[in-house]
């Protein structure tokens, strides 16, 4: 048995890969799983920042690959969740410092001691993407409900199919239910129609996400956040639980309800 290697990728940049990886890592750790996260975005690392672990980096992925450090030395343990670890990316090098074979080797070394290995893929479809996908047992494709992000997701799914990494599963991030209702944003069914892929989670747009990432305390730890709840649900689905997709209607405020009462709707 051993760990399941889950790679988070997207094609397009800025759709929320690192945020998703960080939150899934925390959520899985809260479920009692042993988790190691690997930031494969060499040269543009940021998973450590979102996780609030930046100051504790001594060694990184490239140090491990080039033999300057042992694998264990590069793993930063999360303070709150001792079973959650991060292997950070190097900031000084580029993606060619690591090969797909290196990634497979590292993951194989970690498999026996963990339940999940989460790999944060860089944007794009070049070397960094191939590194991140090479060891994957399962691929999560993050996309936003907009045409350009969906187009890139489609490209990535095609490449995954070509490498026999299965079609993967979709995380639809930053959905605004009100805009979908007005027909200004692609709906989840539009996206599944375009991509022909199963959705494993829909994460609503949430103003709490950015401040949480900035402060290094991922939003999953905030139990009032709807995005946080969505990430927790995805983590439970990754563990094999059946969790229904959450009701996406935004909770109505008092004034809205009042206004509705008076307008007679």
């Amino acid at each position, binding site marked *: 048995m051993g760990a399941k290697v889950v790679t988070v990728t997207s094609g397009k940049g800025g759709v929320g890969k690192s945020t998703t990886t960080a939150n899934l890592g925390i959520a899985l750790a809260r479920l009692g799983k042993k988790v190691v996260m690997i930031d494969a975005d060499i040269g543009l690392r940021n998973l450590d920042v979102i996780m609030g672990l930046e100051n504790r980096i001594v060694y990184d992925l490239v140090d491990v690959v080039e033999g300057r450090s042992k694998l264990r030395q590069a793993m930063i343990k999360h303070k709150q969740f001792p079973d959650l670890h991060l292997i950070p990316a190097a900031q000084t090098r580029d993606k060619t410092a690591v090969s797909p074979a290196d990634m497979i080797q590292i993951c194989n070394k970690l498999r026996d001691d963990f339940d999940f290995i989460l790999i944060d893929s860089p944007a794009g479809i070049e070397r960094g993407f191939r590194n991140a996908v090479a060891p994957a047992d399962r691929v999560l494709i993050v996309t936003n409900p907009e045409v350009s992000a969906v*187009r*890139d997701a*489609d*490209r990535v*799914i*095609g*490449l995954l*199919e070509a490498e026999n990494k299965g079609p993967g599963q979709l995380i639809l991030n930053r959905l605004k239910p009100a805009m979908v209702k007005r027909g200004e944003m692609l709906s989840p069914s539009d996206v599944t129609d*375009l991509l*022909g892929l199963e959705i494993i989670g829909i994460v609503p747009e949430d103003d709490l996400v950015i401040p949480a990432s900035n402060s290094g305390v991922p939003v999953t730890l905030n139990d009032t956040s709807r995005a946080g709840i969505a990430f927790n649900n995805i983590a439970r689905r990754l563990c094999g639980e059946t969790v229904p997709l959450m009701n996406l209607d935004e909770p109505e405020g008092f004034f809205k309800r009042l206004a509705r009462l008076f307008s007679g709707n």
Partner: protein
Amino acid sequence: MPDDTLTIKGVNDGLLITLSPTEQWERITTDLAARIDDKLDFFRGAKVTIDTGERPVPKYELTSLRALLERRQMLLAVVVSESQTTLASATALDIRTRSTLVAPRAEDAEHDDVAPIDPEEQGTIGVMIRRTLRSGRTVHSRGHVVVYGDVNAGAKIIAAGDIIVWGKLRGMAHAGAEGDTTAVVCALDMSPNQLRIGDHITTAPPDKRRSNRPEIACVKDDHIVVEAWS
């Protein structure tokens, strides 16, 4: 230049090169190369139909003939032959074939005592793709293309013949890519971002009407038209 090995004729959409069925193959290819090189500027870019008569041409010979033409920037588009061996070689190389150059003339027909009741269909070559073509994928074919799946936006199909999509067509489809304007594009859901037939190009209309019915695109009066496929 000896004329007994081959003749080169201009036909409506390219060149027809008729090779002697009996002459030595080496002599033919040498002569052909010499004839072309003599007027290279004139021949460059030409689409070539080769008539090999009854000569059985194995695949390796046809391959080298095609290479000979391609080195001179000419395209071997069609092979005409009476030999099954030659036709099989051409099919294996994804070159279009015709078994005889001209339809049997009326007087020939009269010679036949009885016309066959159920003549065997002369099949045409093509490729079948049994999956969805996602963004970034391209399919090229010298024949027809059938997709059993969707063609997503960002994917491309370029075919010398027809294109049939048993699914949603959202990408780019170019039928008749070697100039055949009688080629068609059919799809269960026709919403490509661009359609090309021969050298005609059309883009999706801005008002994205979604017809849920199968449609067919063809060239009529020099324009690509899309109508119900029934």
